[in-house]
């Protein structure tokens, strides 16, 4: 997993609440058996008109946010289906961080598995960011080590991340590898619960 320590990037603002994972990556694109290549389908039904051309009204199609790496959204981002294809699509499109007042739980967890940082700020801070991001070329600078972010015009905010998740992101650690260090404890639990020992 790619480590996340600091990141500076262009902000794309998606002024919608309850953005569900069906919108982030519609079901017709869940049939791939790889983790890669989902970026082309990100927000597909919003991004493209029925004839396949980009919808000029959709936020991510604005010329000013091309190359954005930080997504700003309203509350309950990532609700609905557990599909990890949602963070895969966001990451593959180029996003490294998503900022919203609240996130749905499963999506929130899935982000950390993919080197992507979901940042919870207050409603007031997110409001302020939407105002600032209305201007062209709006950039934010995120520092996960400090748990802070700022722009170039005096905005600063802090955020918290579960210490374990934070450490995994900072070091790009493989979750499974870490857990397999506790195989003995798992075996003890299994034996205490009457399960036969795992062979070999």
């Amino acid at each position, binding site marked *: 997993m790619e480590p996340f320590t600091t990141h500076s990037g262009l902000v794309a603002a998606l002024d919608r*609440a309850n953005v569900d994972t069906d919108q982030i990556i519609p079901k017709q694109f869940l*049939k791939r058996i790889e983790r890669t290549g989902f970026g082309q389908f990100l927000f597909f039904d919003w991004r493209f008109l029925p004839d396949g051309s980009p919808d000029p009204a959709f936020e991510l199609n604005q010329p000013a946010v091309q190359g954005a790496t930080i997504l700003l959204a309203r509350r309950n981002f990532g609700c609905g289906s557990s*599909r990890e294809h949602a963070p895969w699509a966001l990451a593959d499109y180029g996003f490294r961080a998503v900022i919203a007042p609240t996130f749905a739980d499963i999506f929130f967890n899935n982000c950390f598995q993919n080197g992507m940082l979901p940042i919870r700020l207050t409603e007031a801070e997110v409001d302020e960011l939407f105002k600032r991001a209305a201007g062209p070329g709006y950039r934010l600078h995120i520092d996960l080590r400090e748990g802070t972010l700022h722009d170039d015009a005096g905005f600063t905010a802090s955020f918290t991340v579960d210490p374990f998740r934070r450490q995994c992101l900072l070091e790009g650690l493989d979750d499974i590898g870490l*857990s397999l260090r506790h195989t003995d404890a798992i075996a003890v639990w299994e034996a205490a619960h009457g399960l036969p020992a795992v062979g070999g």
Partner: protein
Amino acid sequence: MPAPRTLLDKIWDDHVVCTPPGELPLLYIDRHLVHEVTSPQAFEGLRIAGRRVRRPEATFATPDHNVPTTDRRLPIADPVSKQQIDTLRANCREFGVKLYDLGDADQGIVHVIGPELGITQPGMTIVCGDSHTATHGALGALAFGIGTSEVEHVLATQTLRQGKPKSFEIRVTGRLPAGVTAKDLVLHIIGRLSTEGGTGYVLEYTGECIRALGMAERMTVCNMSIEAGARAGMIAPDATTFDYLRGRDFAPRDFERAVAVWEKLPSDPGAAYDRVEIFSAADVVPQVTWGTNPAQVVGVDARVPDPGSFTDVNDKSSAARALDYMGLAGGMPIVEIPLDRVFIGSCTNSRIEDLRAAAAVVRGYRVAPSVRAMVVPGSGRVKREAEAEGLDRVFTAAGFEWREAGCSMCLGMNPDTLAPGERCASTSNRNFEGRQGKGGRTHLVSPAMAAAAAVSGHFVDIRSWEYR
């Protein structure tokens, strides 16, 4: 004396393997359910790292999301769907996982067959790469959806990294009025909690109303916990649970001994929840969603709300956007909304009890000429049971299509989809934009309400239905 504990506390405490310093707890997972859409990358990850499945016997797989619901003897037309199903088959063979394959008599929606086969049991931790895993909490299990990386983690370690969620008691007093179902109850609850009211919590449904529900109804309620943002919903096991499980394929051999353990699971008197909300069952009327999330819901006797009636700015803009997508105007009576399609199925409402309720409405009637209606049983077992009772003939005589088991038009990954602009009364769980097909418009309702809408061509209040 030990402090009183909730059902969640008891299951949680029993399953924490260890909490290494500076790390999240490792939670032991008793049962892992797998389907074709969220597992291929997890198995591939194991293969790349040279890892194996720690407990294949705790893992059960079935294809459900992608499968055609037409004649199973025919080849799968969509090559990409076929590849995903073939991949599941190959992965289960390679890693020694039990598979209920397409041709298997017990294939079905993973959240229908888990309880049906007795794989789901009280006190267990159960996960699946699917947000509707909450369903299994109806049997007194802690069950929740996970992402594909977590699927891989569970396959490799039989554990999950997990912080303890907060507990939220949803107490429902009294009894549901005639014509009002578990689906209406849960939609009513979601409408009040909002789509994120349950975020960070496990919902425990309690109270007289919940105790009076049968297992299928309890599964409907727990299933939709995720639509209020809660990863899990649960109901303490009782005689209804034990009677349901007794004799099922994977039920414990020494059943009475298991019951003695399960009887200790319900929350202790005085156990504290992080949050409590009380609902009165008498307040619930048949529900119909009007928008593009399940909390955008009203009673069938109400009107489509005007976006201006919402005070919160997010709610206001969401409502305006939803009405635009749904092709509805504020102020329109719900019963005047005309329908093109009706879908009875999904992990929310495709069990035999759901099909019986729908068939009772349909008996002696014909589907309205303007409507195309479809029934998709939740599993091969449900289908056979329905056919043994003659429900299939009730449906087909009325003009419904009678299909093979799968997720079908709940999410339209298979050929069962809405065309752009088509409006559907659906017994499923999500009315998101494009969920049932790009441009499709979904209204969530109970099976009886869906059946009555199919006959009438528009929504009707099931409480005044004339049963034949």
